[in-house]
């Protein structure tokens, strides 16, 4: 496996979706290649940073309208 092939398989690897032999080749390459080891680490960091992005929310007005709609719905059922 080359480095150029390795970088395309990172998500499949992290998802546990590589076939057994591909996984073995991936891990063998990983153990020998500091560049790809670093690439994988940076990929994981990227995923972690994405996971830390702040939640968005709907506007205060939209939220208030929804709670009012819930009160209406409650009366109707």
């Amino acid at each position, binding site marked *: 496996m080359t480095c150029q092939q390795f970088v395309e398989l*990172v*998500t499949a690897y992290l998802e546990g979706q590589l076939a057994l032999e591909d996984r073995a080749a991936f891990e063998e390459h990983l153990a020998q290649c500091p560049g790809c080891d670093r690439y994988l680490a940076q990929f994981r960091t*990227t995923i972690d940073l994405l996971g830390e*992005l702040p939640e*968005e929310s709907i506007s205060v007005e939209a939220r208030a309208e929804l709670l009012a709609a819930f009160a209406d719905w409650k009366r109707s059922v």
Partner: protein
Amino acid sequence: MPAMRADSDGGDRDRELVAALRAGDEQAFAALVDGWSGSMLRTARAHVPSDGIAEEVVQDTWIAVLQGLGGFRGESRLRTWVFGILVNQAKSKGARERRTVPFTSLADDGPTVDPERFQRAGEAHPGGWRSFPVEWPEESMLATEVRRVVAAALDALPARQRLVVTLRDIDGFTGREVSELLAISTGNQRVLLHRGRAVVRAHLERYLEEAQ
């Protein structure tokens, strides 16, 4: 007897939530709206042309959820069911607004890392790094600026990649849930996820190199 669900805890929580909503528990509804509307907004935005319309879609979805609650059978997770309604609402709105993202088209192809980074045929190690990626200083990862770079990189992704990355890495849906929600294969879902993540990584790399 129904088959045991893999996520039986989640199933129990869903049942409690649905029971609370049916009983008219306003706090339970408010907590759901607060917890999920941000993700719903991002998902809707991939299908419609403006933030204002995306918010309308989210509102319409919650109304449809209330109206359809009697029909929720717990065959999927409550959140997956709600997002299924959302995607349908967003698609029909997007079609009316003449902007629908063609989710069924093939995933983009081509390499996710600049081929210039690798040695060519005839060089010592074809397909090997020309020079290794540079280590990212740990302290930089805590900087507010880095978060801004990640957010901007996500916003700049093509709509389908952005949506899949958002649902997977921010909202925590599973690959299977996302492929069902968007009616794409799990393989296609994974390609979009990988491409999106790789682009965000590349943005970070460029930013950190320039910052040094």
